[in-house]
């Protein structure tokens, strides 16, 4: 049975606390000074009319992934569930995929010298019916993960209730990560 995974990021609930980033580091043994996920915050506007821009940066698991088509060794590939993965053994760290990724989500793991990125914690968690580490740890329930084919799932219900934005949708990459935009404060 194929899955149609989706990760929802609600900017209204996110407080930029970086618990997701640390949970990811511990779960996936991400080396020091590189990140698979971060949340950036930026103050917008002129005092006292301000707003805070919250942006989650990670792999968005494109349905049409540019990183896969440029890979010369098929190390970057898409699974039957539509998730994008990297086969470490085939990766020759040519960095084509790093350049091709419009979301800047890939980097070289300095310890292994192979390309690395978010996997949705597929091997250690999602394949065992658990949520990715970032979703599970989030102190404010800002992340929701699940299968869009199941209409009783929280991710399905929230997706149908809220306004969704898909990052860089105009590129036609069809991300599996969607954002619920911030409703408060100055935007620019």
């Amino acid at each position, binding site marked *: 049975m194929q899955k149609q995974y989706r990760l929802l990021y609600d900017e209204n609930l996110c407080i930029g606390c*970086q618990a997701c980033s640390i949970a990811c580091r511990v779960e996936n043994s991400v080396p020091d000074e590189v990140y698979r996920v971060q949340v950036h915050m930026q103050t917008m506007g002129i005092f006292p009319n301000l707003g805070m821009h919250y942006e989650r940066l990670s792999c968005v698991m494109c349905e049409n992934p540019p990183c896969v088509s440029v890979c010369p060794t098929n190390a970057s590939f898409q699974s039957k569930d539509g998730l994008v993965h990297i086969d470490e053994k085939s990766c020759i760290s040519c960095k084509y995929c790093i350049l091709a990724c419009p979301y800047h989500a890939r980097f070289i793991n300095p310890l292994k010298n192979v390309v690395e990125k978010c996997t949705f914690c597929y091997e250690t968690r999602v394949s065992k019916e658990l949520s990715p580490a970032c979703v599970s740890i989030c102190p404010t329930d800002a992340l929701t993960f699940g299968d869009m084919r199941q209409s009783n799932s929280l991710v399905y219900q929230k997706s149908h209730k809220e306004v969704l934005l898909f990052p860089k949708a105009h590129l036609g990459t069809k991300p599996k990560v969607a954002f619920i935009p911030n409703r408060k404060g100055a935007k620019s």
Partner: protein
Amino acid sequence: MAYFQARRDFLKLATTGASATVVIPGSLGALGDVALRGEDKFIRSICEMCSSRCPMEARVVNGKTVLIQGNAFAKEMGTSLCAKGVAGASQLYDSQRLVKPLIRTGKRGENKWREASWDEALSLISTKLSALKERYGARSVIFSAKTGEQYDLLRSFASAFGSPNFENSTYILNFGHNLFEGLDIPLTKAMAHFSADPSKKLVVFDPRFSVMASKANEWHPIKAGSDLAFVLALLHVWIRDGKFDKKFIEQYTLGFDKLVESVKETTPQWQQSLTGIDAKVVERIAAEIYTSAPRCIIDWGHKATTTKAEFQRTRAILMANILMGNVEKEGGIYFAKTAERINALADERVAPELNDPYPRPRVNEPRIDGAGEEGMYRFVSRSHGVLQAIPDAILAQKPYEIKGWFLTRHNPLVTVAHPQKMKEAMEQLEFIVVNDVYLSDTAMMADVVLPEATYLERDEGISKSAFKTPTYMMRNRIVAPMHHTKSLIEVMRDLAERMGFGSHYAWKSIAELRAFQAKGDAELLQTLLMRGVASFDVPPLLALQPSSVERFCERYPKSSVLRDTQGVFSHFLRSLKTPSKKIEIFSAEVEKTFKGYGVPRSVDMDVTQGHPYVLTSGKSAVHTNGHTQNIPYLNMLLSTNPIWMHPSTAKAHGLKMGDTFYLQNAISKEKATVFITEGIRPDTLFAYMGFGRDAPQLKRTHGKGTNPSKLLSLESATLCGAMITNVGVTIVKA
């Protein structure tokens, strides 16, 4: 190249590269690779990365990593945890962590050490402490732990009156209680859902555009320390218009007439020049809150709100809640429901009560910090104390001679006001012991440093955590202690034996301690071992909410006799710990010792002391006030603290982003760098706490950033002794 390498300064603060590996004597790094001994199954315990103490669970994977998440047996937690909590593993096997006792070989503070065995260290401590006792009396040695800090003090003051019930509220007024950067998972989560709900209203007062402010419907950049003026103006408007819960005031309070008198002049116009907030805003907010009452919360102030009038501000906020009649009502504030309270109300044993495991002979010595004594800090709880009072007590040797200090895992040389003076006082002592995970700034001043087992390596007794229902928690060991670290309980119990008073304790081991506390209740112990938390099937009780009282009486029929004609437990609010047993709007006891403090009024709000700027300080979500800055995973996220400054202020002083300058006042002159942002009042500056460390053994933090405590005065808030964390400064060009 790699995006995240280039943009890892996500908090918009410059960070420097990873520090080189340097081996520290007595540290884990000196021992090489170490495997973790623990099981690959979840063990439930209590976090200790900060003072919030959230329930968590952890498991060891491949003997290498400890995965930590929230303990979902605590319903309000789920699997959530903050960055600090998840980074517990990074502290556990930090190469800079201490694992062997150290004994000083150089001069005090010179940072020269030799490694020692536990036996040698403990026998030295017991000999020295016994000698001090012989020569100067037992009272000549101070024992202090983390609970002495201002946060707990403030919290204890507020929680004595009630916790906020965010979920069912519709309107919250928040004075600098920054739950989105000083996290306490259950409260933070409830607040996040509140602020994201379009049907609710959150109004935040803070001189800085905090994360909390960014989630508010309205942010008012109030002048630092003037929150009391705003609250007094609210009280004025409600009383002027007769818009408050008159029945509640009549039934449950005393001294309302004195409040009417004291807020007569505190008009919305009056507060304008003090707070910088328009009078019309006060009028509008007063009307909005009254409309949503009693489902409204005027939340306790915190940190950014401290002044000498801390006691007055907290009491004024309490009065605002009382006027709205939101006490013990759905969506308002409530008293913690301990097992003792619930059992008394139900008139049956609903939840088990615990034995107190620590012998506490009633000592008839005056306390050096004066907590609980007649005089300055008459109203400070004895279990909290006033750390800022210690240096003067040591230097003056009053009220009696102080010769020794035993500190456990707290770092007053970073987190308490005027550490320069604290250091001077420590130099006068004959013997200092510090029990800590790191060779901190404070540990550097010790004669003996004991390497403490981190919370992941410790079994401990049962702790209480009552909210709407009674709850118990227990810290269970996740991994075997690395090398030879020990817990404080083991150390103290061992010292008691060596010093000849071991017989005062009813227990020898942690297992015995737990059994003694639980009064042999095997079911309770079993639950706490398996689940880490024990809650009881008690319907949440709000004593003045008829529906809630009805549910409670149905379950516990004997409690019905306590129900009054209106169907509520009104006696609950008439059996308080005040002299009259009612809520005292005017306290004769306070007025007697501190004239003018018996009822909230406009006093002591100025924090500028004649300087053009106020320096405020606070937490970021990734660090505590002083403990986590050197922990690798967290240091990577935020490793220094440039001072927040408004562009117009920076321009006036000719400063550009990253420039160096000095902060100066009568206490000190401290070097700093500037971070320019629209997110702060032009007359205010802000620093994250915990940086500007002197300890060279904290390799990642040494010499980075500014320690704002070094500019703070030792003068505490009147009555409650809270540390005043806002201070006047002048900007001096470097």
